[in-house]
């Protein structure tokens, strides 16, 4: 069974924002909503890193846990989606999400907060796959067309990988090996820091 995941290779990301642009164009996302963003860590400091961030489709998603109307669901492919017909736009999910994935259109009358919008891993919503109703609410459903998310397929340096978790992990692992690295750039210690390692970068914050 496929389990869809994103991974961003920070050694390759060149901060071109092609992923964010592809997402906006593919799903006709309105002003003020960014399903995907490119974030630079330690901007201006030598060794700065850039990473493309969107919904990570968590296995134990906090947005799902806090939603008071239970509008979220997980597909068989491991993609976290929501039903906009049930969403009440309360914003709890945006407070719960560690990645800032849930977005709210605020350009309505008096700046009212609309229903939540987020990355769908290009797999639409509960409406019929590839239907006009689904497109208008959630954007294109590329997974049901046999394609991968537009952001990853449009990434010029292939920094952003998307697909079955096993496949993208294999691709990334091979890159790491080709670079002559090993477990020091892979796994828990790299993601969350080692107890003995000084993780602060050189220089001050931008």
């Amino acid at each position, binding site marked *: 069974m496929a389990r869809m995941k994103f991974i961003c290779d920070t050694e390759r990301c060149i901060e071109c924002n092609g992923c964010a642009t592809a997402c906006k164009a593919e799903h006709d996302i309105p002003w003020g909503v960014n399903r995907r963003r490119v974030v630079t860590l330690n901007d201006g400091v030598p060794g700065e890193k850039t990473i493309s961030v969107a919904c990570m489709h968590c296995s134990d998603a906090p947005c799902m846990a806090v939603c008071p109307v239970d509008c979220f669901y997980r597909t068989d492919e491991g993609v976290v989606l929501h039903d906009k017909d049930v969403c009440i736009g309360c914003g709890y999910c945006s407070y719960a999400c560690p990645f800032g994935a849930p977005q709210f259109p605020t350009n309505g009358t008096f700046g009212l907060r609309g229903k939540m919008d987020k990355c769908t891993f290009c*797999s639409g919503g509960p409406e019929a796959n590839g239907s006009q109703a689904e497109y208008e609410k959630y954007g294109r459903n590329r997974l049901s067309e046999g394609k991968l998310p537009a952001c990853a397929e449009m990434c010029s340096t292939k920094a952003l990988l998307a697909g079955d978790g096993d496949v993208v992990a294999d691709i990334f692992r091979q890159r790491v090996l080709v670079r002559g690295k090993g477990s020091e750039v892979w796994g828990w210690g790299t993601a969350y820091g080692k107890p003995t390692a000084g993780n602060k970068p050189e220089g001050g914050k931008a």
Partner: protein
Amino acid sequence: MSKLLTPLVLGAAMALAACGEKPQSAGHASGLTKHDAKASQGAQNGFVASGWTPGDDTSWQTQLRTRAQQGQNEYTRSAAVPSSK
């Protein structure tokens, strides 16, 4: 007789009032949310990629694996030897 019946009827009506209430939860627990079809069922448009059969789950998974490897992994096209460092 009616003096006895009236409180009984009123009491029964009050006791059974909740039976007619409709569920007020909007989420999955209420069963009101729509069921999403599997992605492998295919899309109802003309943009479906060739090379797989909509409705066949194995075919869909193979299609996505192939697309991921061919589109995202350069080392399937040009061999790279891991450095000995």
